């Protein structure tokens, strides 16, 4: 019974994610595309909950839907972008047949890898019982602050550099004027 519910939930979230992803690419208005991308992020967050990684699900909503999409929508509003009158597709899209064939070939090869691939026998100790006993956040924190401490600190450095770079770049142009 529970597996049927999980399967139905997966199909619901997957359908929502795929439909809104297609709308991101197809819609004329940039704000519509941004809203569709938010729907995609929420659907993916639901799928992460199905995968028993609640921490990643919450981070997905906070970081992607809450920070990155807000930034993108601010930029769209700031630049006052409208649906372009010149059309959706770039000049290379005159060779759209080649691009679509390439994309379909890529998809077919990905599906072939997934369907015929054999998963290796790697197995760890973090099964559902272990994660639910200790708590998802605790398990991630324990690994992050012991094995992955250096990437963690470097990530904070990276974000600081990004902030400084963004401020410097946006002010540099204003100074010239």
């Amino acid at each position: 019974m529970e597996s049927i519910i999980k399967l139905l939930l997966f199909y619901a979230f997957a359908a929502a994610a795929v439909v809104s992803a297609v709308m991101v690419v197809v819609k004329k208005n940039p704000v519509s595309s941004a809203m569709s991308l938010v729907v995609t992020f929420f659907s993916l967050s639901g799928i992460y909950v199905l995968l028993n990684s609640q921490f990643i699900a919450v981070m997905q909503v906070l970081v992607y839907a809450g920070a990155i999409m807000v930034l993108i929508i601010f930029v769209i509003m700031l630049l006052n972008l409208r649906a372009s009158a010149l059309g959706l597709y770039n000049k290379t899209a005159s060779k759209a047949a080649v691009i679509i064939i390439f994309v379909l070939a890529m998809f077919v090869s990905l599906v072939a890898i997934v369907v015929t691939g054999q998963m290796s026998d790697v197995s760890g100790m973090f099964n559902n019982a272990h994660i639910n006993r200790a708590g998802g956040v605790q398990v991630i924190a324990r690994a992050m602050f012991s094995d992955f401490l250096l990437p963690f600190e470097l990530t904070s450095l990276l974000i600081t550099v990004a902030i400084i770079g963004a401020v410097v770049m946006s002010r540099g142009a204003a100074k010239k004027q």
Partner: protein
Amino acid sequence: MELTLNHYLLLSAVLFTIGTAGVLLRRNAIIIFMSVELMLNAVNLTLVAFSRYQQQITGEIFVFFVMAVAAAEAAVGLVILIVVYRHKESVDVDEINELRR
């Protein structure tokens, strides 16, 4: 039918393909950027699915770092886009594809 790893991997493949099509076909630089974010999310889904089906935690930690890098990239990329817009009055990639004015 049981929910297996292949379900998640196929969904990730579909999302990645849609993101690639968006990057290659669209004209508006912000839509291209959003398609790149879609591709990053597809990869995140693959990482978390493998992490869960192989009973490891390393995949989820990697996803944490991918999200942090995506946030930093979003900030810097959008500022570059704003500066280009100030210079060229357009975010159309057909108009900003040359370095000379």
